[in-house]
């Protein structure tokens, strides 16, 4: 296994040596590293994916092995061509290559640490197996990222090269735009493009490379797809309706990326539901904030202590060069699932999280004010609570709206619905009590009613609201749920322990045993 790793490492290194001489821009690196670290650790799910799929490091990893001669040519292509292109962005290449370099270093580190531990802890075999599984999972994800980044090196130079170099063109077809992770094999444009290109026969070497990559991709597809069937509860592959009404902020709506122009990642349920978004690439520890992760990283070696590594990654740099990544919901049948005919990918991990929680999870957060509205995303609850009870625009059907135009749109849409005036309840009771009261009484009653309108319309509505609230009485200022503060941080005790991707590890058994919370 280790031998294979080293060969892989060598392969990757060969492809990235050309970048080694170039200036290393710390910030973009950090950015790519950061963003990928998230994806990476969401991606493989050791606990459940392993038993379900064919051996990780058997055929797939061997197919990832690229013969050295191919590799050399690959590299040569890179080196020989840049001057010809006008819109070829050396910066992008550099940053991508640097990224590759870093990834390879990570692989190396992981293997080394595995090696060390194997020597130190000769403990229970099951523990060891678990660790190995974890490491292989890490490796797989890193490798996948390597490939995806390597693929993204090509599209930027694909067009200018097309005329001059058919091999690169094919490579571009294979690795570039269709480099979709998790793309279905039949969608892969390389198949079509092959028929279009007359001189494919001359480039047998590249065909081989391409085929290798294709097989790797197939494997990855499997890897990605496989968690779904064994995804556990709630993931029955029955087609379901899109009931996620609030998906507009889940991303991917407005943009019409052509299929295949982006990489599709599919996180698993457990990762989606994990509380943290930033994971240490070395020990797997999760963090809620990237800054905390960077502080944590200092413990893993001096290279993380450089000011560049500790600096806050700037947003714009590197973002252009990273592969366009979109996400798929693991819930089969969902429109956001890549299997869906009208698949609409999700833009970011946050979108995935929100979408999954909203659409496929129980709504476990109940508004403590109205006790009716339920949410699965805590932020939604908070948004609602900001307005709960303040929805003063009420329809006769009982629906409330925060804005008048929304209410009017609703009333216009539904026959028979009519806006309800705030004091309606009061009115009915009063009217039944004293319909024909004596004059002075009536005048006094009117004095109560009339004295307010004379001030301003705002005055009326405020007054009305106050009275209506008292009548309904479902919230007094004191009835705030005291646990809100706690909800703010994290809500469900036990959740993070049981559903954490690393929770299967006995705590404390190794250095990267999971300890939740910000460090």
């Amino acid at each position, binding site marked *: 296994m280790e031998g294979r790793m080293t060969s892989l490492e060598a392969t990757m290194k060969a492809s990235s040596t050309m970048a080694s001489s170039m200036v290393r821009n710390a910030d973009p690196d950090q950015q790519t590293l950061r963003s990928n670290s998230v994806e990476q650790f969401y991606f493989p799910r050791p606990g459940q994916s392993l038993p379900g799929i064919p051996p990780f490091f058997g055929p797939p990893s061997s197919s990832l092995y690229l013969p050295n001669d191919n590799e050399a040519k690959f590299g040569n292509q890179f080196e020989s061509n840049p001057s010809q292109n006008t819109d070829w962005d050396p910066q992008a290449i550099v940053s991508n290559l640097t990224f590759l370099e870093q990834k390879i270093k990570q692989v190396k580190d992981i293997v080394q640490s595995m090696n060390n531990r194997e020597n130190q802890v000769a403990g229970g075999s099951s523990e060891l197996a678990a660790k190995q599984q974890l490491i292989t999972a890490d490796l797989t994800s890193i490798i996948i990222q390597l490939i995806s980044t390597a693929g993204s090196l090509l599209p930027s130079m694909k067009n200018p090269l097309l005329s001059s170099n058919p091999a690169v063109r094919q490579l571009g077809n294979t690795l570039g735009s269709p480099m979709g992770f998790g793309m279905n094999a039949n969608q892969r444009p390389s198949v079509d493009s092959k028929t279009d290109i007359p001189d494919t026969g001359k480039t047998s070497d590249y065909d081989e490379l391409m085929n290798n990559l294709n097989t790797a991709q197939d494997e990855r597809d499997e890897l990605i797809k496989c968690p779904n069937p064994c995804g556990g509860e709630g993931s029955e592959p029955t087609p379901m309706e899109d009931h996620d009404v609030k998906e507009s902020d889940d991303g991917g709506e407005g943009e019409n990326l052509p299929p295949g122009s982006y990489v599709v990642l599919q996180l698993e349920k457990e990762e989606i539901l994990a509380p943290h978004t930033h994971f240490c690439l070395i020990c797997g520890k999760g963090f809620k904030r990237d800054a905390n992760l960077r502080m944590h990283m200092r413990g893993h070696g001096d290279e993380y202590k450089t000011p560049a590594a500790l600096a806050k990654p700037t947003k714009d740099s590197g973002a252009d060069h990273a592969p366009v990544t979109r996400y798929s919901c693991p819930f089969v049948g969902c429109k956001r699932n890549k299997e869906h005919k009208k698949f609409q990918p999700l833009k970011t991990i946050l979108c995935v999280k929100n979408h999954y929680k909203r659409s496929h999870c129980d709504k476990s957060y109940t508004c403590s004010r109205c006790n009716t509205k339920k949410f699965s995303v805590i932020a939604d609850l908070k948004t609602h609570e900001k307005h709960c009870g303040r929805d003063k625009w009420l329809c006769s059907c009982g629906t409330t709206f925060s804005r*008048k135009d929304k209410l*009017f749109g609703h009333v216009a849409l539904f026959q028979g619905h009519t806006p309800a005036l705030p004091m309606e309840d009061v009115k009915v009771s009063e*009217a039944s009590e004293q319909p024909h009261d004596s004059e002075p009484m*009536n005048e006094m009653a*009117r004095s109560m009613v*009339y004295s307010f309108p*004379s001030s301003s*319309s705002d005055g009326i509505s405020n007054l009305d609201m106050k009275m209506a609230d008292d009548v309904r009485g479902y919230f007094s200022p004191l009835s705030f749920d005291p646990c809100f503060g706690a909800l703010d941080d994290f809500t469900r005790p036990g959740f993070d322990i049981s559903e954490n991707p690393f929770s299967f590890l006995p705590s404390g058994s190794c250095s990267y045993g999971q300890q939740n919370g910000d460090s």
Partner: protein
Amino acid sequence: MSREAQKLDSAADGAVGIGVLSLDLLGQVLDRLREPRDRKACRLVSRAFERAEVAHRRALRVLRREPLPRLLRAFPALERLDLSACASLDDASLSAAVAGAGGGLAGLRSVCLARANGVGWRGLEALVAACPKLEAVDLSHCVSAGDREVAAVAAAAGLRELRLDKCLAVTDMGLAKVAVGCPRLEKLSLKWCREISDIGIDLLAKKCPELRSLNISYLEVGNESLRSISSLERLEELAMVCCSCIDDEGLELLSKGSDLLQSVDVSRCDHVTSEGLAALIDGRNFLQKLYAADCLHEIGQRFLSKLATLKETLTMLKLDGLEVSDSLLQAIGESCNKLVEVGLSKCSGVTDEGISSLVAQCSDLRSIDLTCCNLITNNALDSIADNCKMLECLRLESCSLINEKGLKRIATCCPNLKEIDLTDCGVDDAALEHLAKCSELRILKLGLCSSISDKGIAFISSNCGKLVELDLYRCNSITDDGLAALANGCKRIKLLNLCYCNKITDTGLGHLGSLEELTNLELRCLVRITGIGISSVAIGCKSLIELDLKRCYSVDDAGLWALARYALNLRQLTISYCQVTGLGLCHLLSSLRCLQDIKMVHLSWVSIEGFEMALRAACGRLKKLKMLCGLKTVLSPELLQMLQACGCRIRWVNKPLVYKD
């Protein structure tokens, strides 16, 4: 009493004759009596007529709240109920009356509650619940009416007509209630409902597709509203006076709307230009009335060419405040020769030539408004007289170059003249002598024509027996003799303005006492009149509704006592600067049960206690009150609160006490 009534009276003497006629026939007879006074006479002298009226009476106007329950019970066939003048009507009395009427209101179709400030949603709810056939409701000028009141009205699902003018507290919510509750609404006026916005109008347009007439004047709505309104396919009339957020773009949207649009009013819409109007006219082949007063600054060629497409239909064009030229007036005349009414008030540049070329083409003109077109002379009047034989209304205020010669021509050639405004024209008795030929004259305004004397009034009185309104403001040559002639000849006068005619004394007022139909009388600054004159007016003018005695320095408590005793229908009264005391005021305010509006500034002889007592006595009835600012702090807060609670608006003024002659 009219001749008809007298005839019936004599018939009633032989009661057998009337008794044999069926109720139906008697009802038909009653229907043909136009004057309420005559019907009353019939009712009083014959039981048969009384029965017939009970069975037949369709309309009822109630002036006091006390008899309301009895009246509603008495006339089960009522269709129209006017409560606008019903003093101190409030929720309790209205719901009690409605409840007392039982099923008697089942046939009621129309209710007028204009200015019924005391009525709130409780009363309206009871009323609407008792009247299943209600089709028209008028809530205009119920300034405190809000969403809840409108919602109560909206429970009448069959409503077709609704006026909400100046219901200041009505918002989009109230409008939405109406829109949803009354889908068959055909006429709606939202004038001055300033809280209503585009989204309210939008919902209205969606929910009430039958709307034919809509008034959104003075609303702060924009072009979006017009987009919504353009979806109303049956819209015929649209008024949007002073909608400053509406511009040409909105009119263009509107032009895509109803093909039936007949009348558009864009007066005082600052952002509307003739281009927008041209776009609106484009394709609107049925447009009959176009009101564009005080909104246009210039007229484009495109507008004129579009106007020509309305040649056959346009009957009414109002262009007040526009700078016009002779050629423009000529072009208008050629484009719209079916014009019946033209308004050029305050248009600068209106000359004799312009008017001549306009009227030469428009022989159907019945109404011409030339207010403040001060360049015109007798020549213009001559051409009007020559061309417009059907003329009924001519407004010439401030046209000081005209004189009796021009008016002579008018009076000779336009026998149908019903209304003429000669305010500030400097005409004299000779002009009135000619005008007296117009026996159809109803409205005559002679304000500021100080050379008019009793002689002129005598000419008018001799032949204009149908005169209803006479304005003699500051005609200070007029004396008691003139009033004697007037009272003798013009028995039908309802509105009379004698302000600053300071030669008038109690004797003159004594003559006025014979004008039984007089409703509005303004006697401002008649320093010679006293309580005696007021008494004769109060006793004689039984219909008096509005009386202005401001600066009648000699009027004292005696006048107030007379008013309190006799002027039972008085609704508006001004007694500022009069020499009255607290006692008189108390008596007045506690006796006059219809009094709603009283102005009493600088009543120096009235003590604070006097004001306090008087106001307490009138508390439930007053709707409007004008007093000196200083009283605000010395009157008891409970009283002021109580007044406001009863729907009374108090206007505090701060003016120095200056005596004028």
